[in-house]
C-alpha cells in the first residue's frame, strides 16, 4: 500500500461524529509488595473506572493534583502500560485488537512529556531523534531526514542551525519544541501533552502554548492536554476533565466549569488559584490538608473527607456522573436527584 511507505496523514475512519478516543471503564491498580510481616498488602487505585471521550479536533484538558491519576491515565491511553480492566477505543476500533494493532495505534497517537531532557536520547542529534520513528515505520533515511527538517521549521527552529546539534546544547524551551516536532513526525491524529510547559519559564511557556495552538490548526490535530495549572488548561482546552484520586470529579465545556463548578472539589481548585490582584487577596484557604493517599481511598465519594458539604450519605454512596445545570457532568450527590443529600435537587413529580 502506498500510504505505508510514504507515511501520509492518516484517514478519518469513523466520520466527524465518531469520537476520536473513547475510554471505557479504564482501571489501573498497582499491587503493593506484601507489608511488614505479611500484613497490609494493598493496591494503589491509581485510576478507577474512568469513562470519557475525546472528540475529533477538540482539546480535552485534564486537571488534578498529584496522585489523582492524570499521568497514569496518559500512560494507559498511550498503551505504555496494560490496564487492570477497561478498554481504549480509537476512532471506533479497540486498541490492541486486530483492527487496531499497537504499531498502527502508535502511529496515530503520540505524546509529549514534561521533562524535555529526559525524553530525548542524548546520543542522537536533533535530526536523528525526529527521523527515528518515521524510519522505524518504513520511511527511507533520506525522506525521514527531510521530514525532520520540515518539522524543525514548523516548530520555529532553523533546520540548518539546529539539525546537527545534541539535546544538551539546547535550552529547555528549544528542547520542548524538538519533542513536539518528534511527536508530529508520524503525522499522528491525537497528541497527548503531559504537562508540556510546567518546567518552562513563563515567557517561554507562552511561546510554546502559541506554537501548540498553531500546529493544531496546521496539522488538524486533536489534543489531550494534561496540566496542574488551571489557567493554562482554561486557555488551551475546549472541554475539561477534573480528576480526584483516580476518578472523574467533573467533566464538561470549559466555559461551564470555569463559570460555575458543580463539584465542590472543582470549585475549591479554582478558588485556590492566586488572585492576581493584590486588593483581592485570598483570606481563607478553600481546602485544608493534602489529598489523601490513593492506597486506601475514602469509601463512597472520595472527596468527602475534605468536602465542606459532606453528609453521612457521601461516605457510603459512590456518586455517579450526572448532568449538572451548567451543561457539564459532575460526580457529586448534590447534583443527583433523590440521592439522599440535603442539597440534591428534588425528583420532579
Amino acid at each position, binding site marked *: 500500500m502506498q500510504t505505508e511507505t510514504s507515511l501520509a496523514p492518516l484517514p478519518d475512519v469513523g466520520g466527524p461524529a465518531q469520537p476520536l478516543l473513547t475510554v471505557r471503564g479504564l482501571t489501573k491498580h498497582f499491587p503493593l509488595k506484601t507489608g511488614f510481616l505479611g500484613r497490609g498488602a494493598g493496591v494503589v487505585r491509581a485510576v478507577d473506572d474512568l469513562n470519557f471521550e475525546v472528540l475529533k479536533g477538540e482539546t480535552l484538558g485534564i486537571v488534578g*493534583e*498529584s496522585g489523582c491519576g492524570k499521568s497514569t491515565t496518559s500512560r494507559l491511553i498511550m498503551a505504555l502500560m496494560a490496564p487492570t480492566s477497561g478498554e481504549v477505543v480509537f476512532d471506533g476500533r479497540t486498541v490492541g485488537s486486530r483492527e487496531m494493532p499497537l504499531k498502527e495505534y502508535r502511529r496515530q497517537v503520540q505524546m509529549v512529556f514534561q521533562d524535555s531532557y529526559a525524553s530525548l536520547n542524548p546520543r542522537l542529534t536533533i535530526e536523528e531523534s525526529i527521523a527515528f520513528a518515521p524510519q522505524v515505520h518504513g520511511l527511507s533515511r533520506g525522506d525521514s531526514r527531510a521530514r525532520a527538517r520540515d518539522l524543525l521549521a514548523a516548530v520555529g527552529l532553523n533546520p540548518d542551525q539546529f539539525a546537527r546539534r545534541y539535546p544538551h546544547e539546547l*535550552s529547555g*524551551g528549544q528542547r520542548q519544541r524538538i519533542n513536539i516536532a518528534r511527536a508530529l513526525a508520524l503525522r499522528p491524529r491525537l497528541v497527548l501533552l503531559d504537562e508540556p510547559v510546567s518546567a518552562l*519559564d*513563563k*515567557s517561554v*511557556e*507562552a*511561546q510554546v*502554548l*502559541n506554537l501548540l*495552538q498553531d500546529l493544531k490548526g496546521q496539522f488538524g490535530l486533536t489534543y489531550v492536554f494534561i496540566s*496542574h*495549572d*488551571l*489557567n*493554562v488548561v*482554561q*486557555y488551551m482546552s475546549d472541554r475539561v476533565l477534573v480528576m480526584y484520586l483516580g476518578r472523574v470529579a467533573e467533566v464538561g465545556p*470549559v466555559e461551564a466549569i*470555569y463559570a460555575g463548578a458543580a463539584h465542590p472539589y472543582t470549585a*475549591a*481548585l479554582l478558588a*485556590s*488559584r*492566586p*488572585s*492576581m*490582584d*493584590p*486588593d483581592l*487577596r*485570598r*483570606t*481563607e*484557604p*478553600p*481546602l*485544608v*490538608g*493534602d*489529598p489523601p493517599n490513593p492506597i486506601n481511598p475514602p469509601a463512597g465519594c472520595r472527596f468527602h473527607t475534605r468536602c465542606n458539604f459532606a453528609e453521612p450519605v457521601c461516605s457510603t454512596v459512590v456518586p455517579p456522573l450526572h448532568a449538572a445545570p451548567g451543561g457539564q457532568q459532575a460526580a457529586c450527590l448534590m447534583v443527583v436527584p433523590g440521592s439522599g443529600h440535603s442539597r440534591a435537587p428534588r425528583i420532579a413529580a
Partner: protein
Amino acid sequence: MTEPLVRVRDLEVRFVTRDATVHAVNGVSFDLAERESLCILGESGSGKSVTLRALMGLNPPRRTKLSGAVRVGGHNIIAASERRMADIRGSTVSMIFQEPMTALDPVFTIGRQIAETVMRHEGLSRAAADARALELLELVQIPSAKRRLAAYPHELSGGLRQRAMIAIALSCRPKLLLADEPTTALDATVQIQILLLLRRLQQEMGMGVIFVTHDLGVAGEIADRVAVMYAGKFIEEGPVRGLMRGPLHPYAQGLLGATVHSGMRGERLTTIPGAPPNLERVPKGCAFAPRCAFVEEACLPEVPAFRGPVPGHAARCVRVPQAA
C-alpha cells in the same frame, strides 16, 4: 535604630571555575524595612536565588567572589566568619527552600530537628526544646502535632513537610525569613494554604520576608513590594499594586503579558522573543536590549539608571519618564 533590617549595596556575585566566570549578580541594591515583605520575581538564571543565598552566606565559599555590602540586622554578612555566620543563621536570618525533602534530614525525626536548632541557638534543655518543638508544629498548623514530632520526613505529605520546614526556620524567631520558591513544588490547594500561613506568621511574628518566585500570582498574594530581576540586576522595583497594574520596564511588561491568566481564551499570548543573555560576560548597556521591541541608541552605551514617574516605583529603562 536607623538602619533598615536589610541593606544591600552594589552586590555582585561571580562564580569562578577553571573554564569560565559566571556573573550571576551584577550590582543589586535594596533595603528592606522590618515587617516588610519583598518579592523578587525572575526567570531561571536571573540571579534571584543567588541574591537570596548571599543574604545568608550560603553560596559555595571557594568558588564565589562577592563584592558590595550586605548588612542584615546590623551584621556585616560579607565580612562575617563562618563561625559568626552560624550564630547569625537561625536567630537573625533563616531560610526555607523549594524542596523540603532535600532540605530536611531524612535520618532524624521532625521533632529532633526542631529541638536541635533551638538547643544550639538558645541553649535550652532537651525537655524545654521538645516542648518548643511541639509549640512550633502547632503554630504551623500541623494536625496531631504531638504524633508528628516522632515522624520522619518521608512519612509526611508534601504540604506537611513544607510546614515542618517552616517550623524549623521559625524556631529561633528570626527577624528575617528568606523563602526560595517555597510553594512551587506543591499542589494548588496546598500552595494557597502555605501562602496564607506564611502571610499570617509574618504578621504575627513581625518578620521581614524576602520571597523569591517566578510566579506572579504568588507575588500578588504575599508581597508589599516587588523587584523584577533580569540578568543579575533589579530592572524594576515598586509596590505590588503599581507593578502588577502598570509595569514600566518592557521586560516586566512582557513577563506580565506572557503569564496566562483567567479569561485569556482565544487571545494570542504575548511572548518575549529570544532568550536571556549568557552571563559569562557582563552585558554592556541594558541586558534586555537584544530582545526589546523598543530598543534605541541610548540603551546601548551603559546600563540605564533607575527612573520613575512616582516615588517608590522605578525601572532601569531610558523610556520611563522621570518625575521632577
